[in-house]
């Protein structure tokens, strides 16, 4: 099992200064560049520590937001590929359908893969809806563009003998021949995220690593859809390393200490939805059926606890989110039990994407959280015997 340390590289000092929106239209005068520099350096230091502690690394990008200063994943990847030694470098993700130049994406990611000597994991995502207002790419064709850019990047990374041509409605190139080509062959592993069973089945067919976020004890049906798509291509049951799950993690020597950290790490789900409402649902981003439900005032699906209770990630208590399998929080023993119980629910899950820092959590608290987790929980998770893939399929 692999565990990836993730933070959004936030600028929490602006979080109480917004007027209903932390994203897209929050004035950037609220950011002090000198303080932002301190924060970036601190976050890189903490990822270096994660590298030394035996954790892997996950990074991402968002735009025009105080919740995440990483506006281009490539900058973070470039720094980390040089200053870390062994950790896998997962970007989850790169919102590839929002970029106007996929050739540049293929070049950037190949270069990162070479500099890091083959440590890149390429997560391609459609991105959250509010990114559309910034990128200004047509949300109606987001999905179609996503798969075209995916096809282009894979072809660019795997073509080695002559330039190729690409002329579609969206993109036009006559001489594609990237230098450097990627370190890993045929290309760095591909990941993606979803909450939908239809997309999970498609990702299964492709055999990519699939991650979900906030799905808690409602994760299993999405994983099972992946298993179906995976096996329909004539493969056996997918191994646990095809599955990833993003969970919030807070570990303490005592339960009280862990819960104090848990409150802080939950700053992420409690703020990530604060955005001017019209930016949350650009036209065509969701299906017509989903929009009809929104017009009727029907809410979004919530996370589910083991006993079927719904929990709102933005408002739930520490205990609610522990029950929902969204937050793993407690002493090392408790956290180990929570994670392994959740893996059982999933029928196997080989990549924990651990948000071990969020919001205003201090450097000292973050170091303590990562260190205790790595010393007391990680070795046991590495030893843990995942459910056999065939058992998960038989249980469907």
């Amino acid at each position, binding site marked *: 099992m692999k565990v990836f340390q993730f933070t959004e590289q936030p600028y929490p000092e602006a979080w109480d200064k917004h007027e209903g929106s932390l994203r897209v239209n929050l004035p950037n005068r609220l950011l002090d560049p000198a303080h932002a520099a301190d924060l970036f350096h601190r976050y890189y230091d903490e990822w270096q520590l994660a590298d030394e502690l035996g954790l892997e690394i996950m990074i991402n990008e968002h735009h025009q937001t105080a919740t995440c200063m990483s506006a281009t994943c490539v900058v973070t990847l470039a720094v980390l590929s040089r200053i870390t030694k062994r950790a896998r470098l997962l970007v989850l993700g790169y919102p590839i359908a929002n970029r106007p130049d996929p050739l540049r994406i293929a070049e950037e990611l190949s270069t990162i893969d070479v500099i890091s000597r083959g440590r890149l994991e390429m997560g391609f995502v459609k991105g959250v809806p509010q990114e559309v207002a910034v990128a*200004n*790419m*047509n949300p109606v064709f987001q999905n179609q563009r996503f798969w075209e850019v995916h096809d282009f990047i894979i072809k660019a990374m795997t073509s080695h003998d002559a330039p190729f041509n690409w002329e579609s409605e969206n993109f036009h190139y006559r001489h594609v021949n990237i230098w450097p080509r990627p370190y890993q062959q045929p290309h760095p592993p591909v990941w993606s995220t979803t909450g939908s069973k239809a997309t999970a089945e498609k990702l299964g067919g492709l055999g990519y690593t699939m991650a979900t976020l906030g799905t808690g004890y409602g994760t299993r049906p999405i994983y099972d859809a992946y298993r179906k798509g995976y096996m329909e291509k004539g493969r056996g049951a997918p191994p646990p390393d095809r599955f990833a799950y993003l969970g919030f993690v807070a570990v303490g020597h005592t339960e009280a200490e862990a819960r104090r950290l848990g409150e802080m790490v939950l700053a992420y789900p409690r703020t990530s939805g604060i955005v001017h409402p019209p*930016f949350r649902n650009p036209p065509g981003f969701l299906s017509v059926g989903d929009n*009809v439900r929104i017009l*009727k005032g029907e809410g979004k699906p919530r996370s589910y606890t083991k006993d079927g209770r719904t929990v709102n990630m933005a408002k739930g208590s520490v205990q609610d989110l522990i029950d929902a399998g969204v937050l793993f929080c407690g002493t090392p023993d408790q956290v180990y039990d929570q994670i392994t119980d959740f893996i059982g629910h999933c029928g196997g899950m080989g990549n924990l994407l651990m948000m071990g820092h969020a919001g205003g959590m201090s450097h000292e608290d973050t170091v303590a959280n990562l260190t205790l987790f790595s010393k007391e929980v990680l070795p046991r998770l590495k030893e843990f015997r995942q459910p056999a893939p065939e058992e998960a399929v038989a249980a469907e």
Partner: protein
Amino acid sequence: MTAADAGKIRNVQVSGTDLELNEWGSGAPLLFLHPGFPLGRFDPAEPVLKALAKSFRVLAPTHPGFGRADAPDWMTSIDDLSYFYLDLLDALALENVVLAGASFGGWIAAEMAVKSTARLSRLVLANPVGVKFGDRETRDFVDVYSIFDKEIAELGYADAKIGTPDLAAASEDMLFHIARSREATARYGWSPYWHNPKLKTRLHRIDIPTLVLWGEADRITRAGYGKSYADTIPGAKFVSVKGAGHYPHRETPDLFAEAVTAFAAEKTRELA
């Protein structure tokens, strides 16, 4: 909607694409192109169609992607729609057509007229969009996707109540159409936002009498936009409409129909 309120709705195939076409009345043909709706929908029972049908054979299509009929994958721009409707005129062998479009429909109509006026006699543009007059840092249209529905209704209508769909009372079918309209408006007009950068330099090609009707309470478009539009089309008349905003065909349907009918009846030399 009862049969008496609506015209005859039929599905026609144009260049291999399904089109919902609503027909009313008899007489000289008038093709009415509805606006895109970020809020609400095009209703085939719009009162303006009945008012126009007193004088015309009204043909009012629901643009592909807006109603039940899907847009084909290749149809992604107003340019595509303009060729598609020129194909419709060919397919129906219509001559001397009065072409009237509102907002987004006005943009389609202008894009048709710069390509060919062979089957057209008159062009009526009601609060059309589609041309960029502002500089690169000045939007000509409010970004409707960045404001609340309530604000769209307030900026788009003289009387915001007329532009506010009653979602609580709406049927599933109505909600479907509202969601489709919002999506389809973005399909064709997301970026460049509600305009074709080339259209301004092509408007001089329009060689038929043209009327720009302007609902004067329109605050979706920048002040002076309608006058600039009329000034760019050779010989175009500009008439402002009181009591209406961005959608005069909907807020003042009788006035709209009267203005179109009177304009169509004017002799060409009177317009010169």
